[in-house]
Every structure is written in C-alpha cells, then in structure tokens.
C-alpha cells in the first residue's frame, strides 16, 4: 500500500509540472558552464595496519564494509557528471573507478534524475542513489571528515545504504526547516537481500534544523528503513589458504532500522574561513531476523537468528586556522543476537557463531580516531589519521595518510 502510494504520488507529480519556461536561454546557468558539469575526484592512500580484514563480532559484514589494503592503495577515484537536463529535470552520475588486487573495475555508485519543476517544495528522484537516511549516508566518502566511515555505517548498512528506486522529498512551507522524505527501493542491497518483487526496500526520513545565532546552526534528523528478503549473502569470517570459502546465507529475513542524527556547526560571525567547529553524532538501531544457513567445506549448520544491534558515533572537527583542521571521533557498536533451533554438522554452536559473524563478544566493539588535515583550497586535501579499533576480541591500530583532489566543476557546499 505504502509503496504504491509513493509511486503514484511521484507519477502524479511528474505529470503535473507546468509547461512554462520564462525567457528560454536567458542568463547563464550557474555551476554549469561546462554543461554538463564534470568533476573528477582523485583519492589515494598509504595505510599501516595490523589486520586488513574488518571483523566486528556480532555483525555480518556486507556491502562495501571493509578496511583499505595495507601499504599503498587507491581509494575512490570518482567521475561525477551532473547537469540540469532541461527546465524540469536534473541528472547526476557518480562512477568510481576502483583498483584493487591489480584489477580495475568501474562501479555505478549513483545515477539518478531529479525533478526541478514540481514546485510546492516537492522533489522526486529516481534511479540509483544514496538513501536520505541519517546524516552521512548521502555524503560521498571523499566529503567525509575522516578517512574511513563510522563503524555503525560499516556494520549496519555496509558502508552506505545505496539502492535503486524512487525517492520523494518535500520541504514544508514553514519558516523553520522541515524536510520529509520517503523512498521505495529494490531492498536487495545490504542489509536487505534478494526478494521476489525487487521492491521491498522502504525508507522514511525527516530533517529539521535552523540557526541558533548568526554564528551557529544545527540539524536534527530521524530515519527509518525496512525490507524483507528471501536470501541475503554475508561475508562472515573468511579464512584464507586451502579452506573452502564459507557460504553464509540468511533466508526469509526481515530488517527494520531506525536512526537519529544531529549536527551542530559554529563559526565566528558565521564566517567559516578562519576558524570553525563542527560536531555530529548519529545513532542507529537495527532489528533483523531470518533463518541462517552456514556451510564451509564439510561443516554446515542451520539456525534461527534474531538480532538487535545498535551503534553510534560522535565526532568533533575544529578548523583552528585557515586550511588546517583537527578531528576526534568515537565509535561504538553493540549486538544482542539470539540463536534458536541450532543444528550443526561437524560444527558446534560456539564455532558457528564465530564463523558466521553472528556471535558477539562480552566486550562491545569500539574505536577512537584522531585526524589532522590540510586543505589549501576547496579542491585539495591531505589527511593523516590514526585509529585504534578494539573489536572485543583484539585491538587493531591503523595509521593512514590520504590525499583527495577535486578537478573540474566546483563541488557543492552541502550542510
């Protein structure tokens, strides 16, 4: 019912656009002189870390969650092309070119069209896009303030919730900011999985915010995501060497997720040029269940699984002089998983829990990160970051040096 409503509303909106364009061709299109605006992000890094696999006991890894390769590696070298298509539509494509293990792949990160002509505060977006849930979900990694994503994003949505579908947004005609959004998506991307109709994903979000004074502003958001799936692949705890790759599946599952996010920004007189400060925090809770099937070589097990998992991070970034910033971040996760009807062949419940990623430790995973970055202009950035991850089983240090360069069209200053 909900899905149909969003789709019908979107269609109704599209057909109701006025066919009127004032003085066609007058004026130059700002931000669009290259028509389309083309920009290229270059990202590379050097990483010093103990263990190059991201293990978060209690969480089945999925999506893009992971750690960078040891030593030198390429990040997301990303091509972004965008333009107003005409007076009614805007289009954007983001395609990272990845280079890992001596292999080059091109990914379609985002490719969507969006309406410009609906009016009444409404916008419809269609295609593949980062969901509007949370604060950081829709922000590309190269625009993050740290070299890696908060743990809660890696653990619960596989980096970003990024799916194909339709998004409907509405900004209320009020003096204070209220933005409501709804999405219907395939639901096949992590933390969802394959489903027969390929439309089981549903997201809702609301954002509000404003200015506290000329120097300070804030934004608060709440979001909800749910999907049902027939099967979902998860990485689990992989072993290298001769052992056969684990087959770790969740069948007939359901995921519900809710989150709250908050951002506060301060700059003296609102002039962020010299010094500024930014605080952000996000909290997510995810309930999921399903029938787990695990196979690794001759070992196999099945069980019914119910998980209640939460995670949050908070971070502060301070620009103490032009071009220079320092930041501190704290991450924490908690998993409360219940396994019933366990039955195993050559494997006991203890081992199954560890290998499938569903077993949590007595100690919750947490991480401290500190970074300093230098950005002489809008277009270049060098960053040094140190993090210490204690996943409950073991501690891992990571030191990363990163560059991010932006060529071409001027990027957008989003809040």
């Amino acid at each position, binding site marked *: 019912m909900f899905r149909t409503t969003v789709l019908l509303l979107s269609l109704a909106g599209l057909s109701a656009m006025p066919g009127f364009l004032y003085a066609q061709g007058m004026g130059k299109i700002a931000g669009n002189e290259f028509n389309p605006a083309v920009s290229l992000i270059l990202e590379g890094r050097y990483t010093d870390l103990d263990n190059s696999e991201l293990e978060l006991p209690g969480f089945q890894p999925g999506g893009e969650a992971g750690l960078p390769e040891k030593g030198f590696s390429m990040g997301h070298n990303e091509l972004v092309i965008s333009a107003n298509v005409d007076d009614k539509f805007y289009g954007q494509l983001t395609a990272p070119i990845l280079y890992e293990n001596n292999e080059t792949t091109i990914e379609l990160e985002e490719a969507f069209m969006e309406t410009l002509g609906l009016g009444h505060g409404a916008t419809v977006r269609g295609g593949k896009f980062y969901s509007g849930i949370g604060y950081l979900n829709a922000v590309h990694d190269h625009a993050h303030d740290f070299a890696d994503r908060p743990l809660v994003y890696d653990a619960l949505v596989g980096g970003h919730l990024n799916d194909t579908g339709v998004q409907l947004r509405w900004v209320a005609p009020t003096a204070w900011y209220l933005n409501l959004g709804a999405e219907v998506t395939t639901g096949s991307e992590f933390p969802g999985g394959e489903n027969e109709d390929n439309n089981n994903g549903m997201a809702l979000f609301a954002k509000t915010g404003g200015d506290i004074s000329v120097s300070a502003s804030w934004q608060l958001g709440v979001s909800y995501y749910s999907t049902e799936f027939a099967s979902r692949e998860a990485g689990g705890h992989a072993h290298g060497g001769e052992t056969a790759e684990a087959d770790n599946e969740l069948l007939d599952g359901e995921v519900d997720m809710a989150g709250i996010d908050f951002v506060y920004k301060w700059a003296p007189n609102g*002039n962020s040029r010299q010094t500024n400060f930014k605080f952000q925090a996000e909290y997510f809770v995810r309930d999921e269940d399903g029938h787990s099937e695990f196979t690794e070589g001759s070992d196999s097990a099945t069980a019914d699984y119910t998980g209640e998992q939460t995670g949050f991070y908070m971070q502060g970034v301070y620009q103490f002089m032009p071009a220079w910033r320092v930041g501190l971040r704290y991450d924490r996760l908690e998993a409360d998983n219940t396994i019933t009807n366990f039955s195993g062949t050559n494997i006991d419940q203890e081992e199954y829990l560890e290998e499938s990623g569903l077993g949590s430790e007595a100690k919750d995973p947490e991480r401290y990160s500190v970074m300093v970055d230098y950005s002489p202009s809008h277009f270049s950035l060098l960053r040094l970051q140190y993090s210490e991850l204690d996943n409950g089983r073991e501690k891992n240090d990571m030191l990363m040096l990163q560059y991010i360069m932006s060529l071409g069209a001027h990027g957008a200053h989003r809040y």
Partner: protein
Amino acid sequence: MNKRNRLLSVPLFALLSVMAGQGVAKVDILACEPEWAALAEELGRDRVSVVSATTAYQDPHHIEARPSLIARARNADLVTCTGAELEVGWLPLLLRQSGNTRIQQGKPGYFLASEQVPLLETLEKVDRSMGDIHAAGNPHVHLDPYRLLDIAEALTQRLKTIDESNRQYYQDNFDRFADQWQAAIKEWERKAEELRGKKAIVQHRSWSYLLTWLGIDVLADLEPRPGLPPTSGHLAKLLETTEKTPPDFILIASYQNDRGAQWLARRSEAPLVSLPYTVGGNERAQDLFSLYNNTLELLLAEIEDD
C-alpha cells in the same frame, strides 16, 4: 503493518497542519548578499519581505546550503544574487533542495545581478592554479554606482513581472530611487575628485569596480592569488613594492582577516583602511546610500590626514 501506519501518520499530520497556515501577500525575496537585500528593500519597500542569506561579515563564497536557507528558498518568490560563480558552491544546491519552481534558473524568480551589466576582468582561459578566480569576470559589481543603477532597473522589471498588480508601485519606487541615486553620484564624484590618481594596495579583487570608478590605481594585491591568504613571501615582495611606490592606502573589507594587511601597514607606514564593503559592514553603512557615503568618507579621511 501497524507500526508502519503509525510512522506514516507523523508526516501526514505535519503536511495538513502546514497547509492550513498558508497565505502570504508580500513578495518573499531571498537575497544572497546584503547589498541585493538593500536594493530589493529600496525598490519593493513595504510590498516585499527581504532576507539576506549572508551578512557583511561572511564571505559569500564560503557558505553552505544550511537548513535555514533551504527553508527560506522553499518559500521565496525571488532570489537575487550576484552570480558570476560567486555563489557556485551553494546556490545551485540550495535551489535544487528547495523544491521551489519559482526560483529555478530561467524563471522570473531567478535574478543574477552580474548578468545585467558588463563585467570587469573577464578571462578567456582559467586554470585553478590561478586561485579562486571567476571566468565570467569579477563578481563584486555593487560598488560601481552606475552598474548598480542598471541592476536596479533590471530588478524593477523583474518585480513587475512577479507581482503584476503592483507594477506602478515598483516603477514609482525605482523613479524615486534613480533620482536620488543620480543626485548622490554627482555629490560623490565631486567629493571624490581628490582621490583620482591615488594608489592602493588591496586584499582580494573586491574593490575593482569601486577603484575603477574613483580613478584609484591598484598597486598590488595582498593575496598572492585570488582567494588565497597572503603568504610571508608575498608580503615581503609587497613591502619592496611599497618602498618603490608608497601606496596611499591599504584597503581591506571588514569581513577579511587583516593580519597580512596589518603587518604591511606597520612596515610600510601606509594607512590601513577597513571599508564596509557592503551594507552592514560597519555601524554607519546601513543602506546603499550610507554604504557609499561611508566608503568615501573613510578614503577621504586618509587623504586629509596627510
């Protein structure tokens, strides 16, 4: 299913309660900078409601599409901005996020001042190594009174298009403003005669239109490249320049960091003049007339001191 229905009822309730409170008579204007807010006030008076997205103490190039601005853009009938890429980092994003058809590019509600007049310092070829530079030309047009008057006329036409029932009202306001402005230009030019041929060191290209109008020569720029803060090496070079040709003033805007300018002023003994740059840039610059009056007073005060 129950849980979903409950979740859905929140946005639906918000929608209904908001729709009930609509009905605004005034033309709602979002100006990107205080000078265009001031101009819209002059021309629209009590038929318009004007908000400026930035203050005189903010660099209009370094603004984000923050929540309060999206809310204002959502309800605006008209956005009046500088253009020429000055707001390129946030205006296109703000327009897209607003969901407001009236202010999209090409619509009557989208007004860029720099498109109404010829610009100085247009470039054939632009490279980012040149700094924060605008291929379309220097965007800081509001400090040339003649260009400002042309922009005022174009903005009046736009107001008449948007709010047809008050056409005569806007025309009368413009006629009155134009008379007063032209009289003021005569007075300013009479006073500014003494400034002709003086030499200035500037910070950023914010002053090109003002100085061209007043006939003041630019000796050098404190920024090694536009938009980049002064470096010690560059300042040392500037000090040499001032020894050869002593400047009559070092000009900075009240929103700019004055560290480099202070240093140079101390070493070269050239007077440092902090100008309001736009409306609200100091206590005396409260509208367009007092902005120009105060700017000229501050410049003339330095000449008279000598």
